[in-house]
């Protein structure tokens, strides 16, 4: 079974082209992609995808930064295959979009090979990623959702007599239903596990990472006091202005939100100037990537269960970081989750960002300054006009529960286990 991969394309927009590119993106969706220009559903195994336009701006030193067209997606095939499908299945749309970008060849000279090579030049790697459940494919998510619909409908249709509530009888009836139906028989088998090759590779990565930390431990302990002193010095002197987002921005963002049960979040911000913050952020992002890969890889990001996919990508030679995620529920509940459950985790990363509420010892305060934190997020959000979700009416809780329903259909169960199983219905 494949594991999910990701693609990030960052292309500088030619001067003067932002407006027409913005208009093109606006025609492609109002928060949810409408399938015009690029039909994301046509690509194999895409979970989520988005196009955003980052306006031109100036960095903290006042140097100009070009506008950027950014594409981000999460999928079940290899990045190479996904990129190929982009140029094969959406060539015209890709040309229209990236035709606004620096270095994209003229339409007259474009061949499939040149198109692919041109796009590949814009591809950059993510510094850190989060996948809710590693190895869970779009196909599995969708077919298990369908299974659950069928099972629930079937149970509703059974005679509601005194025996209807009996778990063992219900399970047997559902198994019989699946066995007798060609389109459901797959559900009687357990889902395909992750490939042995992938699992070995991950294990090697885990062991290698731990060994590396152990080897470096004496050095790290040596550095620690110096680091902590520097950290506190920076934290005391870093400016932390509380800036409220302009109402027009909030309105624009709100118009794009809450169309499905999930929402996209995209935010971009400057890294605080200086080597110290850059070095800290480098290590932090490496550590995040390591822990999301090996620890928080099954439905739970340190207590937050609503995130499907997330990524951190560094831009402009570490001057900026972009954070993108796909989450269940409203932005207000997402932000409250952050503050109430993983403010420490947010602080570790984002307190290296310019304008973040003042943190202490890298983990304390910061995001717990509720309104300052919420305003910081809103202020740095980029409107995600073109956003695709392969299963926009399913939350992570639903998806996990559907998997439970399916998992309970095969093998022997004690009456006690079956009683547990019907709780998923």
């Amino acid at each position, binding site marked *: 079974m494949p594991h999910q991969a990701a693609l990030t394309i960052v292309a500088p927009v030619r001067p003067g082209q932002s407006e027409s590119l913005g208009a093109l993106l606006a025609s492609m969706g109002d928060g949810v992609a409408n399938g015009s220009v690029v039909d994301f559903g046509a690509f194999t195994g895409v979970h989520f995808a988005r196009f955003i336009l980052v306006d031109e701006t100036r960095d903290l030193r006042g140097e100009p930064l070009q506008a950027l067209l950014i594409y981000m997606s999460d999928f079940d095939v290899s990045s190479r295959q996904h990129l190929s499908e982009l140029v094969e299945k959406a060539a015209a749309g890709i040309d229209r979009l990236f035709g606004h970008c620096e270095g994209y060849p003229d339409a007259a000279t474009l061949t499939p090979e040149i198109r692919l090579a041109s796009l590949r030049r814009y591809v950059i790697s993510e510094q850190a990623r989060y996948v809710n459940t590693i190895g869970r494919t779009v196909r599995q998510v969708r077919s298990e959702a369908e299974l659950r619909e069928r099972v629930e409908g079937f149970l509703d249709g059974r005679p509601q007599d005194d025996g209807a509530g009996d778990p063992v009888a219900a399970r047997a009836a559902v198994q019989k239903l699946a066995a007798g139906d060609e389109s459901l028989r797959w559900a009687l088998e357990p889902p395909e596990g992750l490939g042995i090759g992938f699992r070995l590779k991950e294990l090697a990565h885990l062991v290698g990472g731990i060994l590396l930390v152990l080897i470096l431990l004496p050095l790290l302990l040596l550095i620690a006091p110096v680091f902590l002193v520097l950290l506190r010095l920076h934290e005391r002197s870093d400016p932390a202005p509380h800036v409220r987002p302009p109402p027009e921005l909030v*309105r624009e963002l709100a118009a794009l939100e809450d169309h499905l049960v999930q929402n996209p979040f995209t935010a971009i911000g400057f890294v605080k100037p200086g080597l110290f913050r850059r070095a800290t952020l480098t290590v932090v992002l490496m550590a995040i990537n390591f822990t999301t890969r090996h620890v928080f890889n099954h439905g739970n990001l340190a207590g937050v269960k609503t995130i499907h996919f997330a990524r951190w990508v560094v831009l402009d030679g570490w001057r900026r970081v972009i954070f993108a995620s796909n989450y269940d529920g409203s932005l207000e509940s997402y932000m409250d989750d952050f503050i109430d459950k993983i403010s420490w985790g947010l602080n570790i990363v984002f307190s290296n960002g310019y304008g973040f509420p003042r943190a202490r010892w890298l983990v304390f305060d910061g995001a717990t300054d509720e309104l300052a934190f919420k305003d910081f997020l809103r202020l740095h959000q980029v409107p995600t006009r073109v956003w695709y979700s392969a299963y926009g009416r399913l939350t992570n809780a639903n998806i996990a529960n559907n998997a439970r329903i399916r998992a309970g259909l095969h093998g022997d169960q004690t009456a006690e286990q079956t009683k547990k199983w019907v709780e998923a219905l």
Partner: protein
Amino acid sequence: MNPELHDVQGLVARGYGTLPAARFLLMGLEDRPSARAWAGSLADAVSPGDERPQDRALNVAFSSTGLQRLGLAPEIIALFSHEFVEGMAAPDRGRILGDLDRDAPEQWDWGGPAQPVDAVLLLYAKGAQGLDALEAEQTRSLGTGARIVRKLETSDLQGSEPFGFRDGISQPFVEGLSKAGPPATTLRFGEFVLGYPNEYGRYTDGPVLDRAQDPGGLLGAAPDDSGRVDLGRNGTYLVFRQLSQDVGGFWRFLDQATRRADGSSDPDRRLRLAAKMVGRWPNGSPLALAPEAPNEDLAGANDFGYHVDARGVQCPVGAHIRRANPRDSLDPRPGSDRSLAINRRHRILRRGRKYGTPLGVDEALRGGGQAEADERGLHFICLNANIARQFEFVHSTWLNNPKFAGLYDDSDPLVSPSHPYGGTFTIQSEGVRKRVRDVPRFVSVRGGAYFFLPGIAAIRYLASLT
């Protein structure tokens, strides 16, 4: 910090339960100097929080258009919460509040884009006569500054709401206000009034001004020791929604859903399903404590949690009161102090009143007739310091959300829209769950607005604007 109850309007401290007659006057403000004079007269007339009124009470709140009409500078108005400034009828709020289709602001009787409301005058008295007298007095002082655009009458249903269930049982304990509760369920005063620490130990942002903007020196100090003054101090946000309840539709739906095999009504099952939807029996006893039958001794019981019934076998996960106040049932670790701490950040002070004549279950089941044609429902009023985190969160993340607590297609069966999603009600049990499908919406929105209920000094400040 001790609450300055003498400067807080009385509605924060009490719901005026001893004054059963109430009327809400929705106002439009006009000629600016007269409107300010009117506001000035109110500053002396409104009931403060430190006095228990004997036979009448009066409070006033302003919408953001009202503040505009009084001449408060746009840059000061912008300091209030975004939700308040934009208003309840703002585009895109409908998706958060579920105000879509027939509940869209365009369809409202008041508060929609065509009928904005600038202020609400809340009148309370012991009886009809006293109420009329209070209204007459207030009407005389209107002058050319304000006019009544709509009068909302209320009725005293003796503690029940129109569907027939005892109401208003669960109110948060608030530090500095009357009753002291257990620490785990007692909220900081700043959750309900600006200028005081909230549940995060912070001050909610508000209209903090330079001293120069308060030449009369009317306002109290800002809480941040900056030497500035605080127009928000002792004020709070008042959420007002007129919710019409289809009592006939409610009971007839339940009756149909619980018929016996021979097609006859089954009153016991009907009542049971109603209680499952609400989470309490009509007398108020909670299913969490009285799962099998109503219990008179538990009629006002409010000291319970849900984590012992994580599954929802006693009180369904999607029941109205379990969503409006999930208590200890949500992540992280249901039953823990952390779960309760998160719950404390999403509470509201309810101050609503019912309206319309009561309709008994038998009348409701018979259907038709003049009695049913009369509109009845709830003038929902709540107070909170942070509309987004309190009222809107409860409304959208807990009540309206079909995905609440791991559910799929279950929005609140009693009060939430069931279209296009959310019309399923799942009743968990020891064995296989039961589902009630295609639950229609029994409540519709007839009007609404976000108001600011200022401190009394702040009303004087608004009256003194030049």
